């Protein structure tokens, strides 16, 4: 049983309108010193059996092509076996 967590974030150089709006709201609600907010998403994928070999490679590939958009997003994948 493997648990794969994929965090997807916009690449640092890409504009994040959502993060910008949240940053404004945090400031208006009294939180001082907010330098930057970036909003991302997280996928939690439960798999039968361990993730290894070809399946691990495919998982990694799909994280880069399906779960994230390589044109504008980076991903980070962690696996708990």
């Amino acid at each position, binding site marked *: 049983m493997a648990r794969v967590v994929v965090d997807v974030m916009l*690449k640092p*150089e890409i*504009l994040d*309108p959502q993060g*910008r*709006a949240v940053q*404004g709201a945090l400031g208006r609600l009294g939180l001082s010193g907010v330098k930057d907010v970036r909003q991302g998403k997280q996928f939690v994928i439960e798999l039968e059996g361990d993730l290894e070999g070809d399946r691990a490679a495919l998982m990694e590939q799909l994280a880069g092509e399906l779960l994230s958009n390589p*044109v*504008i997003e980076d991903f980070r994948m962690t696996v708990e076996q």
Partner: protein
Amino acid sequence: MSIDTVQHAIDDPDHEQPYPELGLKPDEYQRIRDILGRRPTSSELAMYSVMWSEHCSYKSSKVHLRQFGEKKPETDALLVGIGENAGVVDIGEGWAVTFKVESHNHPSYVEPYQGAATGVGGIVRDILSMGARPLAVMDPLRFGPLDAPDTRRVLPGIVAGVGGYGNCLGLPNIGGEVVFDETYLGNPLVNALCVGAMRHEDIHLASAKGVGNLVVLYGARTGGDGIGGVSVLASETFDEGGPTKRPSVQVGDPFMEKLLIEATLEVLHSGLVEGIQDLGGAGISCATSELASNGEGGMHVWLDRVLLRDPTLSPEEILMSESQERMCAIVKPENLAAFEALCTKWDVEAIVIGEVNDSGRLTVDWHGERIVDVPPRTVAHEGPVYERPYHRPAWQDTLQGDAPSGLARPTSPEELRSTLIDLVGSPNLASKSWVTSQYDRYVLGNTVLAQPEDVGMVRVDEETGLGVAISTDCNGRFAKLDPYAGAQLALAESYRNVAASGAVPLAVTNCLNFGSPEDPEVMWQFAEATRGLADGCLALGIPVTGGNVSFYNQTGDTAILPTPVVGVLGVIDDVDRRTPMVWGPDGELIYLLGDTRDEFGGSEWAHHVHGHLGGLPPAVDLDRERLLGEILVAGSRDGMLTAAHDVSDGGVAQALVEMALRSGVGARFWAPEGLDAFTFLFSESAGRAIVVVPRSEELRFTEMCAARQLPAHRIGVVDSGLAADAGFEPGTQVLQYTDVFTVPLSELREVHERTLPEALA
């Protein structure tokens, strides 16, 4: 970081510069050196390279586009002509409208959602920068075959991007096109149109007038968007490590654009702005050089004042950044505080980046050092102009000789019926509601007609009912067979659509999508299409007010179908009298106006059923189009018509099916005398429309047609009670071709509506 200053350029004249990587030819680079009397700084090189690009300078198309001005028909309607961000047309009662269509083809192929979204954003700012409140958008879209994997990748993303941006911005999407052809595979066409309205006195132009006036940059912060190419320059000036990777993709923020619209309209109406320009392609380079050369001729910019999203940007990158949702205004110093206050109200950042002067130069400083010192006209308006070679392709004769006359035609009633069903469900003729239902057509509450009607129509003035109608059209297959005629057919169809709605056609915009201008055969297509369009506009008496050219839409040696998309705008004095597609109660009479000939070259039937493209497109008769238009408008004005619908793709059969489905009421119909069933149903002869006339108006209407010598054939009657005789459950609505076949509307609807959802599920 070391900065390439003007002084540096003088001191180090032989420094080798990466102009080829920026797309400049050796002679273009030499010309820049001649203009400046020295080598350009890297910032100057950045500005010239982007402003002299095909996209910004129209260097390959200019010599052909001139015809739109030279052959301009006499008209009082044009308040502002080509050359500004968008032309402005007088629609009466003190109102003016501006409209324009632009392409965002390449970005939408790379990143469909953001490419399409920022296409909408860019055209809306174009309209806004004329001082107009944007009223509506439309999106002509073209894709590869519906069943191609790449179409399934780009289409949903593009549609979601158009909707995601436009819906959030609060502009109704009232029409457009969705067309499939294999040549668009890998070259999807995403054209975006916006129309806006203003009072005459609110027209604003992009010029920097008044020495001492301030140049204010406002809206989103500047980031590294869309400057992939310039990183060559940046890497030159970075001492070590090189720049961070710059995205070639621009990300749109429709929420910011909405705030920008409201803030802009408020500063304009408060009289706080002397000149205004949107920032699109070429960003600050374009805005400052255009504003300066249209005004007093001089401007100084402190580039380090620009508010940045990414503090590592180099000056070259800031000059070229295509970050979205930014505008540039010329403001008198005494108005600055009020201007800033209104920006603050709308949560929009504003910063003074420069000042208007009469130096005749555009100068830019970066932390006290001069990095740009150029004559602005040489950047903005006096770029290179090419007379690209062109010639008629050798294969053109073969193509035109391959007439569709030899293709097997349906003859029996069963064959005719199944051909109709097949076409109604074909990708190009099927319902596009899978696409259009993702667009908000209701917002602002002024949408009178929207897809699938012939036009989008919006009310401009709630008091008087004054409104405008717009249609965009192009059959690229016709243009491939004969680019001159094809462009005129696109114009004619768009014109006819506007007239069918009851509006008077007034002005034309265009988006000319072609392959590579460096291919003489493609260039011939372009030359022929522009010549055809210019001649056509002269013949119809409506001027071209602006447009856009998109070249290099090709994969390898294969160019897209030449696709001159033509948008026609019409005015209607009272939207209450618009003519929709929906017919009235039983007994109303269905008339076919115009002549139907055996014309199947480039038709949907030849394309879908036989995969055939050859022969000649339908004959063009612009005098007939004009007459038809006048009859359609007169019929609307005098209350003689219940419904009208243009006859084009798919012929009379498709037009009747669309009207019946929209109405939900059946009809029976027959062919005019002397016309065989196949030609009657599927020919795509131009200059035709179907109208529906109440019996009480029949005589008056037919007498008008006879007096004006427009052929009018009674071909049917609205009839909701055909079911029983045809062997269907009572109450079933059917379309019945007398003595030939009967089809229930439910069957037509199912076939018509399932194609896109099934393919895109």
